[in-house]
């Protein structure tokens, strides 16, 4: 039995320490995924906490058919989808401005990063999620398909199109500067 499965089994039996370890082990992946999908860091971290609370409540439903990381990202993706329905466009824009300041000093590198971040935000949420999992978090296409509830072929095409759009945005930015 791998470490994650063992931790899930212990958490199911009531071990808070085991669940704590699961949180510590996977928080980076879940938060990174949600930050890329939502665009707004504080919303993303809030959703990530909700994700772990939902995982804790649903421990009994985890059958072990997928990895814990995929299962958590699947919960996170559902949270992101329902959050997107309720979020307003202006709130997302406010968050983007706050992050522009957080990136730090201006320059060509920061400009590239901003252009890419904007391009990422411009992708449809399914594409953003697929790109975030497969390119940023090293998920395999089938793992991402499980997490996002999509066929593998759809994930592959989302990743290819998303990557092309991101690089196109980066190229446009290069051409302007």
């Amino acid at each position, binding site marked *: 039995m791998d470490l994650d499965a063992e931790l899930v089994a212990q958490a199911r*039996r*009531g*071990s*808070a*320490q085991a*669940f*704590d370890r699961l*949180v*510590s082990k996977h*928080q*980076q992946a879940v*938060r*990174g995924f949600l*930050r*890329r999908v939502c665009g707004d*860091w504080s919303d993303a*971290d809030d959703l*990530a*906490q*909700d994700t*772990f*609370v939902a995982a*804790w*409540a649903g421990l009994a439903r985890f059958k072990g058919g997928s990895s814990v990381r995929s299962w958590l990202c699947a919960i996170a993706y559902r949270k992101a989808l329902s959050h997107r329905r309720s979020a307003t466009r202006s709130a997302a824009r406010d968050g983007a401005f706050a992050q522009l300041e957080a*990136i730090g000093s201006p320059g060509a*590198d920061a400009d*590239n*990063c901003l252009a*890419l*971040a904007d391009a*990422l935000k411009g992708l449809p949420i399914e594409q953003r999620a697929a790109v975030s999992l497969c*390119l*940023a978090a090293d998920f395999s296409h089938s793992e991402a398909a499980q997490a996002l509830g999509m066929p593998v072929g759809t994930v592959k095409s989302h990743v290819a199109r998303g*990557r*092309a759009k*991101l*690089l*196109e945005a*980066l*190229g*446009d930015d*290069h*051409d302007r500067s």
Partner: protein
Amino acid sequence: MIDPESVEADAALSRLWARDEAPEVDPAFAFGVSARIGRRQILREVGEVVVWAVPAAAITWAIWPSVSQAVAPVLEGAGSIGPVLVIVSATVFALWSATRLFSLTGMDFGALEFLLPRGRLNGPHDGFR
């Protein structure tokens, strides 16, 4: 336009991903999760108590006239011990509530450990932190 297969493209994307990376270790985040779970547990437990407390109160209210007649002679005899029992019960309940609350917020309370309810996320040596 940038060549999608170029090293520059990969480097640019890597910088984008690194920008959104959360810290590898973040106790504040883990504590936030624990606090939310704690709040949820408290709400669930309050809900469970309400489920039986409300019918119990209604039944007590309904049968109180006949019960009070039956226990009146006993209560007269136990007049001096009644207040002591009330104080002891209230103290035990207050201690139990306090330790329960502290356990959910991760506080250590040593000798009072035995008062904690077991099961769910409170294993034998495993308060929810």
